[in-house]
């Protein structure tokens, strides 16, 4: 169990795996599982424009 860094909503691990991106059920911010054991999530990085390509 951890919490959303944006709104504090409790987040259960369930079947989430490391690297998985999912929305917070309350505030909708996209979260990324940064560690499965111990279970940790962080705000998922936003896609950025790549002007070099």
């Amino acid at each position, binding site marked *: 169990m951890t919490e959303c860094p*944006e*709104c*504090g*909503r409790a987040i259960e691990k369930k079947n989430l795996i490391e690297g998985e991106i999912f*929305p*917070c059920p309350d*505030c*909708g*911010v996209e979260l990324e599982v940064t560690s499965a054991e111990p279970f940790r999530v962080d705000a998922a990085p936003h896609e950025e424009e790549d002007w070099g390509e």
Partner: protein
Amino acid sequence: MKVAIVGGSGYTGGELLRLLLRHPKVEVAQVTSDSMAGKPLGRAHPNLRRATDLTFTPHAELDPCDLLFLAMPHGRAMERMPEILTRAGKVIDLSADFRLRDAALYRTYYNLDHPHPELLSKSVYGLPELHREEIRGATLVSGPGCIAAAAILAVRPLAEAGLIDTERVVIDAKTGSSAGGADGGPASAHAERSGVIRAYAPANHRHTAEIEQEAGVKAALSCHAVEAVRGILATCHAFLREPVTEKDLWRVYREAYGAEPFVRIVKEASGLYRYPEPKRRGDGRPRQPDEGGRGERGPVHEPRRRVPGGDGARVPRFASDLR
């Protein structure tokens, strides 16, 4: 439980009937209306046609019941309340007649002297999120005002948590036409409202008194008529005493409404629909045939709490829907 409604031909009466006719623990025994006496309920509320065989009865033929709803215009129940209270074990008055605890405020906001100030302390302000237990034990419950309910639910948790300056809260409310009731007057006519955004009470709106009483703040309330039938959007501006994080605000609202069945806290991090929207259903359900004949989108709003007449929604950024 045997229930009766006095003044059931208006919008509040119609909305009440829509809910009560399907309530598993309620038998709607009688609905009174002098102007519609003898006519089927569906004559006033077409969405209820074939939902009940009841007809309106005159006020004078009201029988005793377990629970009596008063759905009359403001000022009608004041004089008669002592006698009305003898007719039922419990009375829920949807008008403003017993909402305020301070009798002097009726002179300020309703331009009348309250004839039974001794009953004001016995009346419970009927917002279950604030007074659920008191409502259970009360013999007289006063239904909250639509805009007031929206604002109170949004502001009170912040005030109680000590996060905001309670001496200055600014509330900007937009409301649909049903809030004016079935006899809303010329200003409620379609020709007068269609395509219009109108400030109809930029200051001194009557609901200011309720908001201040129940939210515990000094409020400046401005009300606007917008082109909608149902729904209220109240944007509440409060001033912080100390800096807080967004997470702090979520915590405060979760503590206040996390277990409440009629309130949802709405604030999305992305997408088109980030904040509460009265016009949106919000729960993904298809519209039900009995959900009202006024307003093409049905009576549900987001945040949602059914407030007869206003069916209003509320809340600012973090607000909760008073459903």
